[in-house]
């Protein structure tokens, strides 16, 4: 209790010093995320890390550090930030995927196994066989593996790998490729999409659950206030990580909106590309098929 009070007092001082003025940081209408990223990479091999500009070579390490720090309290923070709604989003995501046995599914950036466990339950599969969880971050995979053993999913595979280069996976291997709240952390989204296309079988399904742009302007203002004022504070209070959660909300603003991301998926070669907004566009499910 005392530590909580001390943290809160420190936080108040920190907030006043920071003096968040969120409006200037909002980049909704200007978020030509894809063009900005590709332009920046063409010009000076730089990319965005939240609202900072970093070298492309550094971004992957920075993202790795962020997730290493938050791995232990990742699920708790997800519940706190979204008031438990992330569980609904993930449930809907798996419902849209509608997998059936026997199948091979690759869940990328699925470190703690949220999506993989849901798929296993949907399949009524007792041991999680046929599901591969891939993540760049070993700490996240460790948390996931531990949870899997507690839940009894001994058949799942756990693979450390980079979404931009899944060299250990052969072409045309998987029936479905899922990535939930991970693709915005990838340095080169187009490479990740091309890899997704490569590893899928013909007819295979690509599904992505990611934060996106809120459509309604009034709601967007509310959402921005909550994102920039409340989430880093909650991150500090619950997980002791201010910067990681600041990166989270900033990276959401840097990610392309629904139509732009759908265009990127199409350019990677996918067909039947479509998207569905959840919760007024806070998150969106994008879907495509390899022909």
């Amino acid at each position, binding site marked *: 209790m005392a530590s909580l009070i001390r943290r809160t007092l420190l936080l108040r001082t920190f907030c006043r010093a920071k003096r968040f003025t969120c409006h200037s940081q909002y980049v909704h209408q200007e978020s030509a995320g894809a063009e900005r990223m590709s332009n920046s990479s063409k010009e000076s091999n730089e990319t965005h890390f939240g609202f900072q500009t970093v070298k492309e070579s550094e971004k992957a390490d920075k993202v790795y550090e962020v997730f290493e720090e938050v791995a232990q309290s990742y699920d708790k923070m997800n519940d706190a930030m979204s008031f438990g709604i992330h569980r609904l989003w993930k449930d809907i995501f798996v419902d849209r995927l509608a997998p059936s046995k026997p199948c091979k599914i690759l869940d990328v950036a699925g470190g703690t196994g949220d999506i993989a466990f849901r798929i296993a339950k949907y399949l009524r599969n007792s041991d999680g066989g046929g599901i591969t969880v891939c993540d760049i971050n070993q700490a996240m995979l460790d948390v996931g593996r531990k949870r899997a053993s507690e839940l009894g999913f001994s058949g799942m595979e756990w693979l450390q790998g980079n979404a931009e280069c899944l060299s250990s996976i052969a072409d045309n291997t998987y029936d479905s490729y899922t990535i939930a709240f991970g693709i915005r952390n990838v340095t080169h989204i187009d490479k990740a999409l091309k890899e997704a296309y490569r590893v899928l079988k013909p007819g295979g399904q690509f599904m992505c659950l990611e934060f996106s742009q809120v459509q309604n302007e009034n709601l967007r203002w509310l959402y921005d206030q909550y994102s920039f004022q409340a989430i880093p504070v909650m991150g500090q209070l619950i997980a002791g990580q201010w910067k990681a959660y600041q990166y989270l909300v900033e990276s959401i603003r840097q990610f392309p909106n*629904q*139509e732009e991301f*759908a*265009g990127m998926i*199409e350019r990677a070669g996918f067909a*039947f*590309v*479509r*998207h*569905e*907004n*959840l*919760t*007024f566009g806070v998150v969106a499910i994008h*879907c495509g098929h390899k022909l």
Partner: protein
Amino acid sequence: MSLRLSPALRHLRASKFTCNNCLRKKHTKISDEVHGMLRVDHAGEFGANRIYAGQMAVLGRSKSAALIQHMWDQEKEHKKIFDDLMVKHRVRPTALMPFWHIAGFLLGAGSAVLGEKSAMACTVAVEASIVEHYNDQLRKLANENPEKHAEIMAAIKKCRDEEQEHHDTGMDKGAEQAPLYKAMTAAIKVGCKAAIALSTKV
């Protein structure tokens, strides 16, 4: 276990999956707009026919009868033009046709009962609204694809020019001297705008 949200929260709906192919097929959206345009124009010409029918029913033996009959004949031609376009493009006619059948006649007859100048004032108000409406449509069609919509634009231009003639004729015949001219024309214009909005969709 089933989760049920209250009806109040049911408006928190996600949009359906938006297919990117549908986003790119803008020509289908344009076609629906053009369908709406044809529908409202057809309804408008039908309404104009009924207005003149109402006026003729009251003023059929007055000195304005010949003039009203001439304008009515032109409106019949306009309606024929839009009938052909509607059939060609398989456009759904407005569901409010029975309503316009009665309302148009009542408007024409009602204005004619107040006198010839009131009838002309009614004509002026209606034609002014229609000319403005046709000009908006021509602008939209010209912005989208003038070559594709050439036939429709030619039809609308012909009708617009003749409606403008009716408007000018009405003014020459003393529409402004009608009792409560301003109030009547304002009310009729508002009614026409509402009719246009309704007939585009319904």
